[in-house]
């Protein structure tokens, strides 16, 4: 470890030792560390005293910060309104902030102005010595030799086999991460919608009379039987598949009807799954003039006038349409379940209907 002095630039090559292997490599040789420039506080006792006072002041500020924290904690009465909470939060934050900054800045200022600022030089040790490497290699050889693992392939191979198999039970026990009775992909093909299930408003649960929907309006809808599902989690999971958006437009604006879907709408009222076919966010925004539905997550845009075909964004399929009609009392009801799985595409989704349980 060497330390450079206050020397003259042409004489300060002391820290570069012969054998560093770079002499003559570059345009000039390493001139060594520049001379140390003393700071004001090193030479002027007044400046030194001033630094000392500054550091102490910073520590005092820290103490004041802690006091501010106490005031915020005890003096602010939390009440119903957010105002008191905000005030308390600010006092706590600023208090802790001062308490910490005071200590931090004080110590750093101390280190910068009053502690020695000589740069020191230390040698890098080579990572290993050749003699030691040989010794280590010898040790490993001896260990392997004594264990006999090389000479006894039977032991080695059975050990490898056992070690590979032994973790499997722990992996297997993860199987019950999903303990549901209807385990498998089949459940993803169905929702709570069925023939005759009423469309009700979300979240009030009131049924919807077709005549009450004005042209250009949109509403968030759930199946009436959703509230019969017991348990919060189960209800949310069912709801995640069954949420529907109902819009009403001028029947003449509907530009496209696939054969077989003629009776899926009712007098310009058209319903679709609200679960985006991209990765599943709720498609919640409806623009009445363009009949476009927008998913806020990645901005897939679907055209309600063209059977919810994708007009922009990353979604790969139209939103599934829910066939609807009205019942005897004039309330909107579903004609059937969706005729395809709702939501994001998954590997087992496929295009066909092996069970034949979709009637489209």
């Amino acid at each position, binding site marked *: 470890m060497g330390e450079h002095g206050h020397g003259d630039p042409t004489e300060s090559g002391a820290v570069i030792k012969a054998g560093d292997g770079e002499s003559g490599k570059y345009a000039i040789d390493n001139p060594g*560390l520049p001379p140390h420039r003393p700071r004001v506080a090193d030479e002027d006792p007044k400046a030194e005293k001033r630094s000392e006072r500054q550091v102490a002041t910073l520590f005092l500020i820290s103490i004041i910060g802690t006091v501010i924290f106490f005031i915020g904690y005890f003096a602010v009465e939390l009440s119903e309104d957010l105002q008191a909470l905000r005030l308390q939060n600010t006092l706590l934050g600023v208090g802790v902030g001062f308490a910490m900054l005071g200590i931090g800045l004080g*110590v750093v200022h101390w280190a910068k102005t009053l502690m020695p600022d000589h740069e020191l030089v230390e040698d890098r040790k080579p990572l290993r010595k050749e003699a030691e490497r040989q010794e280590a290699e010898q040790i490993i050889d001896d260990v392997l030799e004594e264990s006999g693992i090389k000479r006894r392939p039977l032991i080695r191979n059975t050990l490898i086999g056992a070690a590979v198999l032994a973790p499997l039970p722990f992996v297997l026990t993860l199987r019950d991460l999903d303990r549901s009775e209807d385990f498998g992909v089949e459940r993803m093909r169905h929702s709570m919608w069925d023939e005759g299930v009423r469309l009700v408003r979300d979240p009030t649960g009131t049924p919807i009379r077709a005549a009450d929907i004005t042209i250009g309006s949109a509403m968030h809808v759930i199946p009436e039987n959703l509230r019969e599902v017991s348990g919060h989690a189960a209800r949310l999971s069912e709801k995640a598949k069954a949420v529907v958006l109902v819009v009403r437009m001028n029947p003449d604006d509907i530009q496209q009807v696939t054969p077989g879907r003629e009776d899926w709408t009712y007098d310009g009222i058209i319903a679709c799954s609200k679960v985006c076919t991209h990765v599943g966010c709720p498609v919640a925004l409806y623009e009445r003039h363009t009949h476009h539905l927008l998913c806020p997550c990645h901005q897939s845009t679907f055209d309600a006038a063209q059977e919810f075909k994708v007009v922009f964004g990353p979604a790969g399929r139209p939103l599934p349409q829910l066939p609807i009609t009205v019942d005897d009392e004039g309330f909107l009801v579903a004609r059937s379940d969706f005729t395809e799985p709702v939501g994001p595409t*998954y590997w087992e989704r496929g295009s066909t209907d092996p069970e034949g349980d979709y009637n489209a």
Partner: protein
Amino acid sequence: MSATTEKYTEAQYLEAEQYQPATRTGRITNYVDQRVGGTGIVREFGRKIFPDHWTFMFGEVALYSFVILILSGTFLTFWFDPSMASTRYDGSYAPLQGLEMSTAYATALELSFDVRGGLFMRQLHHWAALLFVMAMSIHMLRVFFTGAFRKPRELNWVVGCALLIMGLAAGFTGYSLPDEVLSGNGLRIIDGMMKAIPVVGTYMSFFLFGGEFPGGEVIPRLYVLHIMVIPALILVLIAVHLFMVVTHKHTQYPGPGRTERNVVGYPVGPVYAAKAGGFFFIVFGILAVISGTFQINALWNYGPYDPSPVQAGAQPDWYIGPFEGVLRLMPGFVGEIPLEFVIPTPWGGNSVATPVLIPMIPIAVMFLVMFIWPWIEAWITGDKKEHHILDRPRNAPTRTAIGAASVTFYCIMWGMGSNDLIATHFMLSLNDITYWSRVLIFVGPVIAFVLTKRICLSLQRKDRETVLHGHEAGVIEMLPHGEFREKHTRPSDYELYTLVAFESPAPSGPQPNAKGKITRTEKLRARLNQWFYQDRVEPVSREEYLEALEHDHHGDGHEGGLEATDRRSIEASH
């Protein structure tokens, strides 16, 4: 077996026991030392040298924010209950009273409204998390651009990459815990992306959520990951990371007095320790002030998770931005042709969600290349030496340009993650921004590459200028014979050395292997090597420098008293 079994003398054994400390402190330290051997630690670390530079600070910031995360996070666990059991909210926030919600959300609200300092701690935790990932990212950029990942530090670079991924995982699992609308939709997106993975994806989702999304299991599971598994891994990785830093000793920037064989800097005690320790309090203080004054993730505004509502314009945490953005960039259809397709199989076909899968590719490639970059670069350059002196970014133009291109690529994805905000802020069409970004994501990195390389090369040329002709003093003088010219001052040796001490190897060309054959991979390597090192600017050589001095000597316009001694020392060393 071992050659180093020395014998200790009887006196050495007795010495330790007979030592009588004189002072009180001496007695205490002696007590500890005799039991755990503190002498060795103090001798090893007490005066260990650490180079100091402001760019070495970011790793420290990351470490300190992690400490703050642990402290504030522990506080939060005392009140937060990750259960998804349903409850009716009856806390003090009036607008949500009487609503059915999960216990997780209810306790997160209670923590914010009814526990004094709870809101502060939650905000501190969130801000610290943002800073944690931010500091790690900048630290990695610093390491990349200065070439600090080169031998012998390749493995530590990998540990760093793993830390970054763990940081992202910690962030995401934490973000999902409060179970309000925002985090629920975040989970929904994860669910959708998982389901897109061929063959195993659907079941991964089932196993994570304990059935169909959202179910009643996922939050406690994420909680265990968030407060135990991930922090434990991060702690282990940090320990390994720091251990390796000590083993390798820190890198240093090139400069006078610095060589590959030494470390120049401040000793741990007292200066470095004081600065680093003080810096922890500064980071803490800044985070505390921010948490006290800037609201973050006001979860009472969102309401309990429900699959139906969604927040438009809601922003995910910044580090999730690129993932979100790249999903937005991808079109689902090209014209009228859907990219999604079904593989016909006897059992009814399997769907491939191409619009979700394709964006995962650049992200996966980016992370993979990041992990193995030290080996890629070493293979291309054929450089097998140890490096403890950092590169100035300009002196490795191709690497710097690659870095800039990757950063650009990342930033475009990130910008796309906020394209809705950009659109409303600057009154642009959202769709136009997306169309342009689809072009930009390919063109932008190329432009960044070319530009950065040019800039590096011209900076290198400027360095050569300075070495050969000195600094322009900004003074025009008239020579005796009437010519005008600008005065130049020669830089000192200390400055010169920094400008000339770097290597800029020529492309090496294909090397035959042991059998004297040039393999096809070797040809590829040679081509990449050519690309990596072409258009190089060489450092000023000794001959050029001497010539410049000679020139200076004959002309009358030179300035600066160093010149004479320069000549002497250089000629002497020849």
